[in-house]
């Protein structure tokens, strides 16, 4: 609970600092005098949300990214599995994919304009290409890293190629695949917004760029906040889906920073001493070990597990 308070406080502090710098028009080396204040942006946001355009932009961008991302997920997993499992596919597809991979998806805008009859399809193409490579590469690695006995076990049960794919390869690669999907949804947003800025009709990116050209800075920030929130929601959705589908993974009981550290009271010269943290407690069992001989080693190991 206190962690949520901390998170909200951190966000509020950042906004407060922003409001302070912009309303005081601080012009040191960084110039905040032209910057819209938080209040300006909130007002512009309220205006936008009550209009229809905002929601059209939002649904356009969302449908582009969801289509592009879904295509990328399917194609990326399929290609990754194919390349990892078949030497022929690796030889045929590998070189082409490796040459295409370093090209930033957004640099494909001219290609998209040449290839596709509509801007809409071009944007989906760019979004898809952006997410495809992280998904494909992580699938390929995950499939290659599968434990061989899983497949051997299914083969000795009489399982064929499709059974191995469905019962071993796909479920076993899922943790890796979701690593790729998480990266993919992020780059998808970057690319859908950039593509909309260059060639869109409607869409959050298009609107943001329009606002910039007509010097409506609060509008630009409304666009940015919208992208941020949508991006956060979609990546959280991917993350949660991934965690649910891989809930069989053994998880460590260790929670970073959140584990309650047991206080160990040791009596020294009759006075109770609380030993806390790793630095101090490490010495204490050492001293005990000398007294107890062999059993001390075991006790110490237990203590730190």
């Amino acid at each position, binding site marked *: 609970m206190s962690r949520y308070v901390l998170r909200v406080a951190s966000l509020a502090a950042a906004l407060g600092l922003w409001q302070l710098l912009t309303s005081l028009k601080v012009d040191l080396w960084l110039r905040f005098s032209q910057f819209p204040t938080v209040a300006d942006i909130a007002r512009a946001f309220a205006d936008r949300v009550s209009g229809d355009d905002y929601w059209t932009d939002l649904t356009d961008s969302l449908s582009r990214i969801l289509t592009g991302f879904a295509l990328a997920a399917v194609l990326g997993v399929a290609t990754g599995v194919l390349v990892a499992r078949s030497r022929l596919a690796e030889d045929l597809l590998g070189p082409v994919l490796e040459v295409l991979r370093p090209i930033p998806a957004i640099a494909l805008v001219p290609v998209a304009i040449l290839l596709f009859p509509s801007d809409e399809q071009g944007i989906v193409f760019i979004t898809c290409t952006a997410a495809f490579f992280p998904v494909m590469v992580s699938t390929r690695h995950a499939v290659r890293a599968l434990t061989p006995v899983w497949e051997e076990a299914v083969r000795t049960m009489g399982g064929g190629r499709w059974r191995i794919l469905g019962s071993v390869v796909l*479920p076993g690669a899922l943790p890796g695949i979701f690593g790729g999907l998480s990266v993919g949804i992020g780059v998808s947003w970057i690319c859908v917004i950039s593509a909309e800025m260059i060639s869109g009709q409607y869409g959050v990116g298009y609107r943001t760029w329009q606002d910039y050209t007509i010097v409506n800075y609060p509008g630009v920030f409304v666009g940015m906040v919208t992208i941020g929130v949508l991006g956060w929601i979609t990546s959280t959705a991917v993350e949660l889906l991934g965690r649910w589908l891989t809930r069989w993974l053994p998880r460590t009981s260790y929670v970073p920073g959140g584990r309650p550290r047991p206080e160990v009271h040791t009596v020294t010269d009759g006075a109770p001493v609380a030993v806390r943290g790793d630095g101090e407690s490490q010495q204490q069992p050492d001293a005990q070990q000398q007294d107890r001989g062999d059993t001390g080693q075991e006790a110490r190991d237990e203590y730190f597990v």
Partner: protein
Amino acid sequence: MSTSSEVAAPEGARGARLTLDAAVLGRPGAPVLHDVALDVRAGEILTVVGPSGCGKSTLLRTLAGLLSPLAGTVSQDGTVVTGPSADRALVFQEDALLPWRTLRGNVELPLAIRGVARSGRRAQAESWLGRVGLAAQAGQLPHRVSGGQSQRAQLARALAGSPRVVLMDEPFGALDTQTRSGMQDLLVEVLRGTGATVVFVTHDVDEALFLGDRVALLAAGRVASVRDVPRPRERGALDDPARAALRRAVLSSPGI
């Protein structure tokens, strides 16, 4: 065991005979065993002993059909083996359960591959888990159970497919001594109803003598000898002169 007849499919109640003929075994370019002639009789338990790295696992993987012999043939009841099949189940030393399936889900897998309907699958899987003493753990994921329990689940999974041959690659090698002897008793008990032929690989001579109807010795890249083990099955039984002599003979053979 009264449930055995309804669990094991009729064709699984008969063990197959496996024959290795003048075979060279290993990976391409790296032969491990030479000139192997081995006849595994239908329904027997053949234990294979030898030091680490002598080719025990290679032998077993070849019998399973996962490795092709570099020369010679493997045949089952006279038919040449060309690849793995549901006839010959393999139990691995390491944890080979699929970690995303519960123990029940793992045991259901060979049944699903054999085409058993979903409802029958569940009942049969639970019956097999019950026979290896895991009825209470059926819904657990593999990483939540102990090493011994996971090996028992592997055994249940191997037997659920009603194989005619069960190949076991040091299945109890990673277990502590008490768990291990419990597992040996359980194995003998569970196998009794199936009639399956068993090839059991181990580096533990006492385990080989306890479980085996016959013991094959691997040494120096060859099958050094195959010996009958006196019955009845008895743990240790060093006061029995025939067994003690056999044990001495096995331990003193070259390479062991």
